[in-house]
């Protein structure tokens, strides 16, 4: 007990000292500003990199993490949060930093595989035994099926779910933007509520037992199993889904100011190393490394996917068309 009190006190002093008005950075310290469920990944990744960097350069490096909602995080960076690197779950967020002149325009080319070290996809979580027999997106628009998903306009998961359904409808025979909008409209009419975020959607589905299917990241299914038990639900892979990418970038202005470019570059590059890729797989994110993907094949069943770039011409176009005010999402709710 006395130890934890001492810890609280030292935390108190440290926070007063570190977060005070003095410039708190030193050489060999990186701040990684990230989205909110990436913590488990970086909690494992950071020690790996620290060891690697110590062996390679002899420097020890301090790594600080900041996690919150993705768009909120990049707004903070634009408003002066001194991130050396950003690791996000949507290209539209990094694009915003490009617009503000903090990240180079061709950031996606600065690292391999579209600057996204791992991927995931949207899948269905259904009640145990799949009582309603839901197999594909077309089953989700049937009358009487309740679909749980996070707010499609305000959250990253919700946007990916929305685009996944849209892309599926578009790729059906005779599919056009018009049929896709109708399809997505029907799907949204089956949503009894819009959860405030991915986690909230899960709680609504698992704990409050609302809905027949939860649309979620594949990687999140494992987190759900961790908390609610593995036998509690089934995972269904639709015939086609969206490939979700997680772009990373260096914040130019900050690394120049702090003189941490070298470390920041190495930190991100190392994500594509064997160790970094294996860490992704262990956190249920699909590694880019083909060999590792094979090794973890039972964990990552084959699924046909399309990217935002393929179908929507990139986030820079998809975002205004669908999610800005007056976009397709808003249109669906005005037609009533």
């Amino acid at each position, binding site marked *: 007990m006395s130890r*934890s009190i001492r*810890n*609280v*006190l*030292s*935390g*108190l*002093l*440290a*926070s*007063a000292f*570190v*977060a*005070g*008005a*003095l*410039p*708190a950075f030193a050489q060999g310290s990186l*701040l990684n500003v990230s989205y*909110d*469920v990436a*913590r*488990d990944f970086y909690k494992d990744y950071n020690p790996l990199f620290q060891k690697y960097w110590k062996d390679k350069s002899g420097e020890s490096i301090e790594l*600080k*993490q*900041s*996690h*919150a909602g993705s768009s*909120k*995080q990049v707004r*903070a960076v*634009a*408003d*002066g*949060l*001194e991130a050396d690197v950003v690791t996000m779950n949507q290209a539209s967020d990094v694009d915003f930093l490009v617009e*503000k002149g903090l990240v180079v325009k061709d950031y996606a080319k600065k690292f391999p595989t579209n600057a996204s070290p791992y991927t995931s996809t949207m899948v269905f979580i259904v009640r145990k035994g799949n009582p309603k027999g839901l197999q594909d997106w077309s089953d989700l628009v049937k009358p009487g099926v309740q679909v749980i998903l996070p707010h499609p306009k305000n959250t990253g998961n919700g946007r990916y779910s929305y685009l996944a359904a849209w892309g599926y409808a578009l790729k059906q025979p005779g599919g056009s933007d018009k049929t896709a909008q109708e399809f997505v409209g029907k799907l949204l009419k089956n949503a009894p509520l819009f959860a405030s*975020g*991915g*986690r909230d959607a*899960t709680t609504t589905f698992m704990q409050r037992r609302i809905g027949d299917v939860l649309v979620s990241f594949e990687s999140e299914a494992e*987190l*759900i199993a*961790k*908390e609610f038990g593995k036998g509690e639900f089934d995972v269904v892979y639709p015939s086609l889904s969206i490939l979700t990418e997680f772009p990373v970038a260096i914040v130019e202005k900050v690394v120049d100011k702090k003189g941490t470019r070298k470390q920041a570059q190495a930190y991100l590059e190392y994500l594509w190393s064997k160790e970094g890729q294996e860490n992704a797989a262990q956190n249920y994110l699909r590694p880019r490394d083909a060999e590792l993907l094979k090794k973890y094949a039972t964990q990552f069943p084959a699924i046909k996917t399309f990217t935002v770039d393929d179908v929507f011409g990139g986030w820079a176009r998809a975002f205004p068309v669908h999610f800005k005010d007056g976009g397709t999402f808003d249109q669906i709710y005005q037609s009533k």
Partner: protein
Amino acid sequence: MSATIVRKAAAEPRWLRLTLTAVGLGFLFFFLALPLVAVFSEAFAGGWGAYREALSHPEALSAIGLTVFIAVVVLPFNVAFGVAAAWAIAKFDFRGKSLLITLIDLPFAVSPVVVGLVFLLIFGAQGVFGPWLSDHDIKIVFALPGMIIVTLFITFPFVARELIPLMQAQGKDEEEAAVSLGASGWQMFFRVTLPNIKWGLLYGVILANARAMGEFGAVSVVSGHIRGETNTLPLHVEIVYNEYNAIGAFAAASVLALLALVTLVAKTVVEWKMRQETEMLDTAMPPEKTE
């Protein structure tokens, strides 16, 4: 003898007392007690061991430290402002008083989300003072100063709002008497005013304190969420919950509930001590109103 009869007549009949108590407690049961029980039942879902482990995590401890630190820093500002504003408003008449009271209330009406945004518009890198602050390497937002300023904003009205109706109801006869008997301004304040308003002041402080520790929305915008550095307990709760660690989240939330209780325990102790003193001084004192 006749005093007790009058006293009885000045109280509600037994059935009404019971009904009112039942209604009040019933309301509190559904709106307060049950949520609290739910929080603790989630926190202890994994047993005492998991609860303790969740709280002894260094990040949780640093969040507790930061939360308490901010609450303590904010406190004297609120007391000073609250007493000054209530004094001016309750004891004097001047033009625009209603407007002033309304302006004091205003922070309540501003959505916490907007509060954070407002300070970003001023101190953020794209804000009014942003470039100047950045040139001089002064950090306000995404650091402790910003979090303190935001907390000051959201707790701004509490003490004043608690004191104004109380001081209004008390009038100014006693203070005027003190002054006319030759007391200096500060003597009058410490000997007459302060003893009169102490409970109201305490309620205000307790409320402000609870609010300061529990605030999420506004602080979240200016915190930067740096682990172990600028994460307060409410922010810690949110992040841990989003990581599918309900026990950790609700354990941290239960600490906040307990922190709020601590101030109440302090109040009870003070109350009890004071009663003892007055009883020693004046054994003939009439029974407490609360009984």
